């Protein structure tokens, strides 16, 4: 079973790499100066009440692997939302692939989400569709659901170990299976960036490792990864496999976490 899974995984990965290379020519040109995928410049954010955080600056380089940590309610989810255009900062500037989010309309944000895959903290699916259809949803809504494109779907499902559950309804999945389905959905468009919000939030350690493995593999192929988590063990496990930067939101500031992790 494990071997089979690995073989499927390798097949899907090789496909992915080829496509990545094919895409590079057009996407790099659109990146801003310095080639950052995500750039925050003196960003402040508040939901009307007190300021959640202020004066945050960050440059996320392509191919990097970041963790974002901090106490519950510090604003990790909010931070990620700023990073894919779902929220606008109350002050400062957020640039995605060099574009200021203030200049983006709703449809531009939608297009942006095809380049930035997101795994949400509270994963949501269309419950009347099968798991496979849900994973393929980004292809469907972008009109790329040709037979060609869908051929990858099977391998992708195998990669996250959900091939056998392809025809199930999302409501029938376990917590870990939902997280993996969400990851598969986030990467099916072969995005340049994957943002994951507590991807291991409600699953056991073994499954967490499995998910981390998938993220690390994506990163090795050049995908930029940003994971919000309060699970320090996960961060430690990642550090042993890949070069990461750990950011922490505390006291309304973003800091680079020290070597204690």
């Amino acid at each position, binding site marked *: 079973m494990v071997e089979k899974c690995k073989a499927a995984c390798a097949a899907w990965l090789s496909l992915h790499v080829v496509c990545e290379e094919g895409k590079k020519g057009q996407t790099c040109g659109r990146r801003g100066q310095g080639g950052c995928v995500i750039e925050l410049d003196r960003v402040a954010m508040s939901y009307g009440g007190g300021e959640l955080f202020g004066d945050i600056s960050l440059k996320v380089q392509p191919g990097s692997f970041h963790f974002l940590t901090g106490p519950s309610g510090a604003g990790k989810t909010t931070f990620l939302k700023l990073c894919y255009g779902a929220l606008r900062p109350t002050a400062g500037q957020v640039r995605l692939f060099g574009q200021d989010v203030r200049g983006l309309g709703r449809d531009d944000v939608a*297009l942006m*989400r095809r380049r930035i895959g997101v795994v949400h903290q509270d994963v949501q699916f*269309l419950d009347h*569709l099968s798991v496979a259809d849900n994973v393929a949803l980004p292809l469907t809504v972008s009109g790329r659901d040709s037979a060609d494109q869908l051929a990858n779907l099977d391998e992708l499902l195998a990669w996250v170990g959900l091939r056998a559950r392809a025809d199930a309804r999302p409501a029938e999945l376990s917590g870990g299976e939902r997280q993996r389905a969400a990851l598969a959905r986030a990467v099916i468009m072969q995005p340049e960036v994957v943002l994951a919000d507590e991807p291991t939030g409600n699953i056991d350690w073994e499954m967490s490792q499995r998910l981390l493995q998938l993220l690390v593999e994506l990163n090795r192929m050049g995908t930029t990864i940003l994971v919000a988590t309060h699970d320090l063990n996960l961060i430690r496990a990642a550090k042993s496999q890949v070069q990461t930067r750990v950011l922490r939101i505390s006291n309304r500031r973003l800091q680079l976490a020290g070597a204690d992790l």
Partner: protein
Amino acid sequence: MTRLRAILAEGVALVIGDPQADRLVPPTGFTARLTTFAAGAMAFLAVFALALSLASGRLAARWSEELARSSTIRISAPAEERAAQTEAVLRILQATPGVAQARAIPAEEAAALLEPWFGPNLPLDTLPVPQLIEVVEESTGFDPQGLRLRLTAEVPGAVLDDHTRWRAPLVQAASRLRILGLLSILLIGATTAAMITLAAQAALAANAQVIAVLRLVGAQDGYIAQAFVRRFTLRALSGAGIGVAFGLVAVWLLPSAQEAGGFLTGLGYRGWHWVLPLVIPVLGAGVAFVATSAAARRVLRELT
């Protein structure tokens, strides 16, 4: 030309559609049936409003034509002079250019004309009922002013009633009725738009979570809207189609127009006019398309 083709292509795409997009929105059984029913009921009413409008149009045209071509001369004179005056008037009419035919209406016919108002046993002899002469004009018409002058000079008891006085309000009434019919069609259209807007808005609001997921995976507003628009347009089209079918059967079953029938039994469609109601479902679908598009645009703007 290319624009027209683009619009046509869009229409075809809408009907054949992107079944994928349609599938992404969960089926909404109850609002679906309500929309179909409302569109059907409105189309049914529209069939009658259209029939009313067409019939009153016909009536207005017929009245203005028929009434314009006939007038009457009324002779109020003592009984002993009546026959002589009648003859004098007929003589004058024969010599008047533009008069096709003139006929003294016999007493029995006059009684029949009055019967609807006074009942069958009208004692005509005791009443000073005037002698009537019916004048039918040629298409060129005669000069009523000249005729009137001659009559006053030669037959003092004769009065020309050229109907213009009471023809105008009748024709006007028929024209008004026609406008009311058209107005009803407009109101029916507007009501349909309102109902479909409400239904679409409810469906969109009920699917806020679906919309959120679709946006999350990169769906643009146009794509999301299309799924709803297509659904409601097709429902309106089929509902209106059924409504029109029922309406046409109902109109067809109306008693046919007879000579004496007058306005009510003449309510049906005539000739090629039977084709007109078939436009109603298309219009209904158009109304649904516009209403749902607007509702979708509004809701999607609010759901951010």
